[in-house]
């Protein structure tokens, strides 16, 4: 038997001519934690899907426990002992913990009748594997993300898993929950199970992993023991460039704040939030999922009425009751989820760009010439170098970065005082990310006041001259300076 549990060499996969994976090599040792790291869109998910049998590889060899595997199907992967815990956890939220744990084996064994005793036994056996205790009758949907994850791990163990793949498991966890998860991971590791841990968070990777595999643009650029890697090397491999000094330095910040938020509260969302924002400034708002950062932004955009507190815009107190009014007050918002909130995917790029400025483009009585839409869209296409040959193509034909440029254009074609960006570069590749950052810098220097909401700390650090950290709905810290260390933010974020 070889030293490795799973060994993959020269894996290639392309979608419609685009190489998602380009000769990727990597290997996992039994009883070790292997970290798969890389930025968004680097091919991590594709690789996982090949291992779990969702996708079929175009080229390459896979060896599992010394045996070459020609074709992996999801059933085959399960039989081999490969289990994937996806980000959405694939649970049934309306069923109980017991039912969730037992249902898979009931189905695979072809049981036709419900036997509660047997179900309970299966569920208890699963929980005992990691010594985890939870009410078996609790509804799955009511559990915390951390508990759901542990149940999902237990379920994976029922299949005699030899390799458990966790897809960004820490995204929605608090620090304490992450610690608990890592404890379980170490426990699994000691019992000889290999863990493949997908993440892009530097600290976590150095804390938990034995080996690391770093991917960039569909290639693996580093594979080897974590111990041999410094944090600088790691960042270099992740981003593919030495950290150039493209930190934003505000050039002309106005004296008077353009936006002033005082003691803003929304029940169960955020409390007593106060801050000021000046023209020419980029303010970062960061915090974990559920820290109230998005809800705060939505309130500033008229979606979510604050219960108390005041918002002052250019010296005048305002009530923002709808996005329409926010637009009138010259506030723009680039939403968190580009695909469901930002774009009409099955409509032309041009119509998406001009969606918020139809009033400007139309003539009396709402008459509209389609040519005006195309002309306006073409201006933005040139300005942001949106990669398309024809703005009449559907927005769905573009890549994430270019789609984000559409959403940005949509708002920038209005005259704005304040632009709120929620996760402006989520799912955007490195090149486009830098483009977007430079663009934001330019806009700020032209006098726009910008708020960037992001949990990507490197993004916050590079772009913001001031950072507000939120936790459980309150502001717990504010950092200023042109070079805020990420570690300082991590200190207070949890």
């Amino acid at each position, binding site marked *: 038997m070889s030293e490795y549990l799973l060994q993959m060499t020269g894996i290639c996969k392309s979608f419609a001519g685009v190489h998602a994976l380009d000769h990727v090599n990597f290997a996992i040792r039994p009883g070790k934690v292997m970290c798969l790291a890389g930025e968004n869109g680097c091919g991590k*998910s594709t690789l996982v899907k090949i291992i779990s049998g969702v996708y079929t590889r175009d080229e390459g060899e896979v060896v599992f426990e010394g045996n070459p595997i020609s074709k992996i199907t999801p059933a085959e992967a399960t039989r081999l002992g490969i289990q994937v815990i996806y*980000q959405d956890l694939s649970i049934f939220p309306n069923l109980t913990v017991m039912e969730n744990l037992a249902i898979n084996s009931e189905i695979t064994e072809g049981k036709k009748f419900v036997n509660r005793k047997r179900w309970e036994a299966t569920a208890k056996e699963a929980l005992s594997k990691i010594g985890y205790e939870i009410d078996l009758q609790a509804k799955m949907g009511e559990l915390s993300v951390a508990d759901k994850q542990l149940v999902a791990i237990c379920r994976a163990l029922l299949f005699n898993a030899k390799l458990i793949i966790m*897809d960004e498991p820490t995204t929605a966890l608090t620090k304490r929950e992450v610690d608990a998860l890592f404890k379980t991971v170490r426990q699994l590791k000691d019992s000889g199970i290999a863990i493949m841990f997908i993440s892009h968070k530097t600290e976590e990777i150095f804390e938990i992993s034995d080996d690391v595999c770093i991917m960039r643009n569909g290639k693996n650029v580093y594979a080897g023991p974590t111990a041999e890697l410094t944090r600088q090397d790691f960042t270099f491999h992740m981003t593919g460039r030495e950290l150039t000094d493209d930190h934003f330095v505000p050039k002309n910040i106005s004296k008077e704040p353009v936006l002033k938020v005082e003691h803003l509260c929304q029940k169960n969302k955020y409390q007593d939030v106060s801050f000021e924002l000046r023209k020419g400034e980029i303010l970062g708002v960061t915090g974990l999922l559920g820290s109230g950062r998005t809800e705060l932004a939505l309130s500033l*955009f008229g*979606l979510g009425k604050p219960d108390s507190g005041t918002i002052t815009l250019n010296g005048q107190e305002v009530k923002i009751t*709808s*996005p*329409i009014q*926010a*637009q009138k007050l010259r506030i723009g*918002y680039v*939403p968190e*989820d580009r*695909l*469901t*909130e*930002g*774009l*009409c*995917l*099955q*409509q032309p790029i041009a*119509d*998406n760009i001009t*969606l*918020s400025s*139809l*009033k400007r483009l*139309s003539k009396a*009585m*709402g*008459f*509209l*010439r*389609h040519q005006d*839409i195309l002309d306006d869209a073409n201006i933005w296409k040139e300005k942001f170098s949106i990669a398309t040959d024809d703005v009449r193509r559907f927005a*769905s034909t573009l890549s994430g970065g270019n789609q984000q440029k559409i959403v940005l254009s*949509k708002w920038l074609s209005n005259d704005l005082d304040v632009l709120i960006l929620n996760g402006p570069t989520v*799912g955007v590749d490195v090149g486009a990310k830098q483009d977007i950052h430079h663009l934001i810098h330019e806009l700020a220097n032209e006098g726009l006041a910008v708020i960037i909401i992001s949990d990507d700390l490197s993004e916050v650090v590079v772009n913001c001259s001031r950072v507000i950290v939120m936790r459980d709905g309150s502001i717990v810290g504010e950092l200023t300076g042109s070079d805020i260390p990420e570690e300082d933010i991590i200190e207070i974020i949890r």
Partner: protein
Amino acid sequence: MLTKVKEFSQKNLYTSMLLALLVLLLLFFSITKGGTLWSLGTWNGIFMQFPEYGVMTIGVMFCFISGNIDMSFVALGNFACILGVQYMAANVTEGMGNGQIIGVMLVAVLIVMVIGAIGGVINGLLISLLNIPPVMATIAMQLVWTGVSVAITEGKAVSGLPSLYTDIGHKMVFGFLPFPFLIFLIIFVISAFLLKYTTYGEKLYMIGTNIKAAKFSAINTTGMTVATFVLCDVICCIGSLLMVSTMASTKADYGTSYVMRCILILVLAGVLPDGGMGKISNVFLAIISIQIIASGVNMFPSMNTYYASLIWGGLLIIVLILSTKLTGNGFFVKKRKKSS
């Protein structure tokens, strides 16, 4: 030439399917029925019959493009017309001049359209403000309107229309243009213009594609939904008014089959209730095709007219299969969810 045809059909899948269907239908009935199909009477009949549900179809089209559906329009139209007819019956008296009668008729038409607008506002508010799924909200309203109509008429037909009104259904304008078709044409042109050359039309397609994104783009989605249902239901009430003139009376359950027929026509034309897609020209082609089938079946004396539904149903299935096969993806374009 051939490559041009191919390119056109790839770009305009539904248009080419409908054109092919129309040619096939005309060929089939020409061969089997020859002269009967091409007589003036047949075509007069076709152009007199389709406007009442054709007008309704255009109304519902607006709902479909916005990603909604309306099941209540026939019941609402009947209710509105019951009040309108009762008004006319009560106010037209012996010895009134034509001018006076027309005056009463216009007031009645106005009453019907206002009730249609109110029905549209209710539908729109139920859906956009209270977030009730469109099918449920409009089915509930359908029951409400039918119930109210039955209550005030005791389920009986309401008649007593002035002959001036009942003549509308078979009147020829300029000696050759059926009056109902003229009404259809006017509504068709206005609707086409609304869709193509106004901000309303632009926003309608965008809302239908992704209402959430539209909301985040500072579009008044509540206003748009209410406006769309008002437009839909007012147009549908005009259809009901045409129906009243051909039936010379009105009743709580007249024309209930039109609900499904309108939906059938729209899906045939590629205006799917998913929203955000479809062309009004295709709706016209689909209406004509459906009417030609109905009239064609009528030309065979031995055939029960209900065979028309059988053909419509079969046709719908064929179109669904074809559109799935030809576009490569599922019939209802999958809305992309969060991708990782």
